[in-house]
């Protein structure tokens, strides 16, 4: 795959967009502006970004409890996201869903999901619809290392291979499911090794290298689009923050985090683009200023939006 400079810059912007969003959400959560459970994507931006760079609005994704990055990478509107996190009526879900349930079906975003392993069957279902309608669209299923131990994930992968569904399973292996390290929750070194159980391709990729992710995911997505069935791509990565905001992270070593910060996907791409002469310090500042501006606007929008009215409580249960 030959990524044009333009696409590389787009990915750089997308990763920064996620990062700035997440960092601000962390502050807003600490300030008590955002309630509930908030799982941030800081450190894992290359995965969503690299994968979604291969998708259009006609393609589908299912996300996880850690969904902000997927949503932004798939084109989600941060104003509507921020308003939703605040529980405002103008949010993506009119305030009814919050962080764990943001969806934008017009963009093919089938929702964050509060159930670990909830997404894989849904993604297989979206892929079934794509196949059925012969739309040439595909579905991408983001799921964690922890989710790979869930029965639903096994079932979705098996059915997807049986039916040759156009779905790509993107495993985000950040080494932990809350406090559970993968070394204690599975005996194979790679989630991708499990592809062998379904006779589908299983690929391991550096999840902090957005170009590598983009290329590997691109192959799986092309394969799916061409009707050649599903594949499993494991992206090795790490979350910089706690499992959710408020997690003291007592279960892992600071040194581990420090090591992974060295591999932070954003400086890595930035460095590369600077070396290639594609980005300059000024250009970078310009990008970051723009992102900060957009974010400030989103926050203002969220702040100033009204809460839903209590009269809306019973709306939207049935069609």
């Amino acid at each position, binding site marked *: 795959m030959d990524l044009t400079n333009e696409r590389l810059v787009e990915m750089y912007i997308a990763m920064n967009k996620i990062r700035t969003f997440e960092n601000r959400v962390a502050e807003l959560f600490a300030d008590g502006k955002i309630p509930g459970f908030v799982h941030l994507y800081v450190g894992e931006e290359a995965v969503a970004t690299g994968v979604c760079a291969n998708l259009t609005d006609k393609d589908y994704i299912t996300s996880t409890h850690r969904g902000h990055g997927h949503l932004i990478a798939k084109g989600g509107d941060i104003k509507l996201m921020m308003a939703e996190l605040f529980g405002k009526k103008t949010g993506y879900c*009119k305030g009814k869903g919050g962080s764990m349930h943001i969806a934008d079906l017009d963009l093919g975003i089938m929702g964050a*999901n509060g159930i670990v392993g909830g997404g894989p069957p849904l993604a297989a279902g979206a892929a*079934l*619809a794509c196949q059925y309608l012969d739309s040439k669209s595909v579905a991408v299923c983001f799921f964690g290392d922890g989710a790979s131990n869930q029965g639903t994930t096994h*079932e979705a992968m098996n*059915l997807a291979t*049986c039916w040759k569904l156009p779905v790509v399973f993107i495993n985000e292996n950040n080494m932990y499911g809350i406090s559970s390290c993968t070394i204690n929750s599975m005996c194979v070194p790679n989630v991708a090794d499990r592809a062998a159980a379904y006779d589908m391709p299983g690929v391991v990729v550096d999840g902090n290298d957005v170009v590598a992710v983009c290329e590997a995911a691109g192959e799986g997505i092309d394969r799916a689009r061409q009707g050649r069935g599903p594949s499993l791509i494991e992206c090795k990565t790490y979350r910089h923050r706690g499992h959710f905001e408020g997690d003291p992270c007592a279960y892992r070593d600071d040194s581990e985090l420090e090591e992974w910060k060295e591999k932070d996907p954003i400086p890595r791409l930035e460095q590369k683009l600077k070396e290639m002469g594609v980005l300059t310090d000024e250009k970078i500042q310009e990008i970051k200023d723009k992102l900060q501006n957009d974010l400030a606007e989103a926050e203002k929008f969220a702040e100033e939006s009204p809460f839903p009215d209590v009269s809306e409580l019973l709306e*939207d249960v*049935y069609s």
Partner: protein
Amino acid sequence: MPNMTFAQALNDAHKIEMSRDPNIYVAGEDVGVYGGIFGVTAGLLDQFGEKRVKDTPITESAIVGTAVGAATVGLRPVVELMFVDFIGVALDQLYNQAAKMKYMFGGKARIPMVLRAACGAGIGAAAQHSQCLEALFMHIPGLKVVMPSTPSDAKGLLIQAIRDDNPVVFLEHKMLYALEGDVPEGDYTIPFGQADVKREGTDVTVVATANMVHTALSAAEKLAGDGISVEVVDPRTLYPLDEEGIINSVKKTHRLVIVHEEVKFAGSGAEIAAMVAEKAFDYLDAPILRVAAPFCPVPFSHPLEQAYIPSEGQVIEAVKKVMA
């Protein structure tokens, strides 16, 4: 009107709807080549082909979950769970995903899907293949729950269910599959939330579901001999529940007996009784009685199983008690 069995009426409903709408697919274990363990999907594979009639591996979470995903994206899945008892391995996709997605997404999803399942005791299938679990589904906002008692209701309600834009749980009592009756030809629907008065009466209202409608009807026939006039009301859908229809009957008779095969404790009848005890209390002249299965798993042995299933005798006794 042609005469057909309950199973044939369901089959007919499938064929009519699948012919009408190419986006309907059927999936489940043994629904294709086998035609469904109870024959409900017989002939569909031949008529509509593999794309639309999908035999699946044994994988209920994925069967239900793919239906939810496909429905969200534009198809109209009709999936079979074989036995409702199996919902335990697939419940999450139904109750946390299908039922809640529309609400969680602020109204922006439509999940038109039907989950069909056989329920009920009577064939010696024991504890894991004989349950009635309608109360579980009733309690989940976002689901609709249908439970027909006759071939014609089965057809009309299934077509209605397939056309509904929400996840519908469609419960088929297995002792009804062979029941014959007149069934309207062609396109025929029954709106949800409309109870059907299966027999008119003035002394006691008996609300009954599925096969218990027939038990109630034969009890009513016997009670007529004793000069007691029983009105048998079949809610047909448990959600939406026709509260008005039930209350109107109680306003007339002032007495209520509820009959269902489900376990009594925290069963569907509890909601009906509680609803009436709240909204029509002043019309009641007697305690509300429930005739339902006792608090145990469904036993295998024939005499025990028969003792488990609510009987005509128990209905008669309850009616006489509220008349006393």
